[in-house]
């Protein structure tokens, strides 16, 4: 359907980065600090490592089977029925993740900026643009991520840099936190925020040189994890751990506090939120594309386009399920942690099985068109 093998390593890195960085950034400092206190940068770092383990195994699997998607090679490894269960779990997890991401962002927009707009509208708008964009093939998908990359990176860095003048180093110490009890929980929750990386399994079959996929994984994780850590450090140093336990969206508050020199524009949070729509859009695009591509492969459909609108009402209903904002955050936490089983443990198991059964994909048949779209 599509000219295979056009994605470079840099583009793959960017895909990972923008799929991971999304709406989670807004609430990240609050979530982490509630569990990690002043040791949150360290906790974030640990979370990044765990996420990287999952991504590494996924990449290794992808490099081993450079022409198949996870649906196919899991079938080869553990048999059709088990693999179908695994794939269906992945698909439903990512559908739920799409729903929750759009819901969370809708809540943020409505609470912080557009107070009268009904939640349904913001959620539908986000889901619509994601599903419209997901009808394209993988190459255009990569172009989209590539294009929006600077729009995500620079505002985040700008906010971090501009807020440093209000920073207070004391808030960052002690480095490992005053209380260590919840650090493990915090690590898991942070790792759950990286789950967008699963899209990489769709990208590897289209990379120009799949053997270099690991480099993309490493840099992608470093970039996104690094940004997370920077934001946590910035919020922590400006607000202090106790205040962060009170503020629901510290990153937004950070944006509220910065003002461009010369006071041209004050209160930048509305502008920041608007720009952040691109980050959330890229994340939504990734998870949604993942869902429909894997689904179309599972059912051996010719292409994925019709699924893009077909699944939309389902995802929308899922997004509307949580009753209120606190309930939503509880659900996100639970789903995120369970998801770690799927995104970290499952690839690990598959890889071990692949090693044991000594299975490999068709490395030489590079022009294998039917299974690579």
């Amino acid at each position: 359907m599509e000219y295979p093998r056009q994605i470079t390593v840099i583009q793959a890195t960017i895909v990972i980065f923008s799929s991971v960085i999304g709406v989670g950034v807004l609430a990240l400092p609050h979530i982490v600090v509630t569990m990690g206190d002043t040791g949150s940068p360290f906790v974030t770092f640990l979370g990044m490592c765990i996420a990287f383990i999952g991504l590494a195994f996924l990449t290794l699997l992808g490099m081993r089977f450079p022409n198949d998607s996870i649906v196919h090679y899991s079938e080869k490894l553990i048999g059709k029925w088990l693999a179908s269960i695994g794939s269906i779990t992945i698909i439903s997890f990512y559908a739920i993740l799409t729903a929750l991401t759009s819901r969370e962002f809708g809540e943020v927009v409505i609470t912080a900026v557009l107070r009268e707009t009904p939640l349904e509208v913001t959620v539908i708008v986000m889901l619509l643009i994601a599903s419209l964009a997901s009808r394209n093939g993988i190459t255009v998908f990569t172009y989209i991520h590539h294009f929006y990359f600077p729009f995500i990176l620079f505002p985040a860095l700008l906010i971090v840099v501009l807020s440093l003048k209000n920073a207070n180093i004391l808030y960052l110490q002690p480095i490992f936190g005053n209380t260590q009890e919840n650090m493990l929980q915090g690590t898991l929750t942070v790792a759950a925020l990286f789950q967008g990386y699963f899209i990489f399994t769709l990208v590897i079959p289209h990379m120009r040189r799949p053997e270099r996929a690991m480099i993309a994984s490493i840099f992608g994780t470093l970039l996104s994890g690094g940004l997370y850590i920077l934001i946590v450090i910035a919020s922590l140093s400006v607000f202090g751990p106790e205040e962060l336990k009170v503020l629901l969206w510290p990153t937004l508050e950070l944006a509220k506090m910065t003002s461009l020199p010369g006071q041209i524009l004050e209160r930048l949070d509305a502008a920041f939120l608007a720009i952040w729509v691109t980050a959330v859009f890229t994340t939504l695009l990734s998870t949604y594309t993942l869902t429909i591509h894997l689904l179309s492969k599972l059912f051996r459909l010719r292409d994925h386009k019709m699924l893009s609108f077909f699944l939309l009402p389902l995802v929308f209903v899922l997004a509307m399920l949580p009753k209120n904002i606190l309930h939503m955050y509880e659900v996100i936490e639970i789903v995120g942690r369970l998801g770690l089983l799927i995104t970290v443990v499952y690839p690990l198991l598959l890889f071990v099985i692949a090693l044991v059964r000594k299975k490999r994909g068709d490395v030489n048949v590079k022009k294998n068109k039917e299974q690579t779209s």
Partner: protein
Amino acid sequence: MSKKIRSKPLKVVCIFIIVLPFLSGCWDRIEIEERATVLAIGIDKTEIEEEEEEMVTHLKDDSAKEKYGDYKVTVQIAVPGRLPLGPGTGMGGGGDERPVWILESKGHTMSDAITNLQQEISSRIFLGHLRIIVVSEEVAREGLREIGDYLRRNSEVRRAAWLIVSKEDASKYVKAQPELERVAAIYLLATMDQAVRLGKLPNNFIGTFWSTLSSKGQDPYLPYVELKKEDNIKISGLAYFKNDQMVGATTPIQIGHFMGIMQMNPGGYKVLVTVPDVNETVVFESVQRKSKLRIDIKDGIPHARVQVYIEGDITESSNDYKITTTKVIEQLEDVLPKDANVRYSKLVKETQEAGSDIFGFGEYVRAKHPTYWNTQVKTRERWNELYKEMPVDINVTYNFRRIGMKAR
């Protein structure tokens, strides 16, 4: 099976047509002239009589209101059109009309008061441009947590707004009509900002207030102002808090001491000192401040040592005292710190008596000595206790760099 609609755009258009009616409302569109932009708020304590009960948020006999105190809220609303940007054009009836509109309302809580206010006004109250909130001392002494709660949950309020404590009634401030600016709120704001730039006041807005309020090892402080004649506002010190209740105020020059200990730049206070042995007076202005803080735990009690370095210029000296050589300056540098140490320590003692650690020593302990903190302290109340007894050594060093345009 599926009926194929031929063209792809047609499919997309169909989806849009189906979804569009749901999206066609403009829910949040409030035109700028429909908003009542509140520039300043003043909060006072008051008693609400039976007859005055507005019953907008509750019924007369509801017991919920007993939990809260009573507030009188005065707001300053900008009137569209009366604040011309350029040189005042002829239209608008001349300078008699005030560019702002002052309103008062009473309520049991902040939210209650604002709701009562909204009942009376035609436009929607918009707090996005709220720059300054004046709280009377009475209210501050009772506790600012409730007020803070309302303002925090409201997403329009900016964390960069000023929160100041006033000696008299806050409503007087909001009603003030000063000469220098057209709008009182801007005047208040400008006073605060200018003071920060001159180095006379720490850059402390409502955001930092809340941050320090939340942190366990530090108590918050706010600018403390007084109203002078002709509606001028004078900054008369810092109000320091224990938890969220005000427990005392410093004098203006003590702000300088405070900023010295906290290493807040630029420096700006001019200090009039008598030079011992010579009985002359000298005024110097601090330009830069640096400080080093060390807290050690000895015998289970933290000991604090503060080293303050102040760089300054000499701005005035009395008639006979000639500053001719370096030796004279060095002499000054030797002699004056003794005085300073006493004064600084006095400030610290005052706050210690009140149990209000505005310097943040507690945060320092929590950060650098976490084990001690985790075992001995853990809570804010315990730290306030410890702080009262904590010995603090202050050592001030002066460096005078310049003496102005005069040669001696």
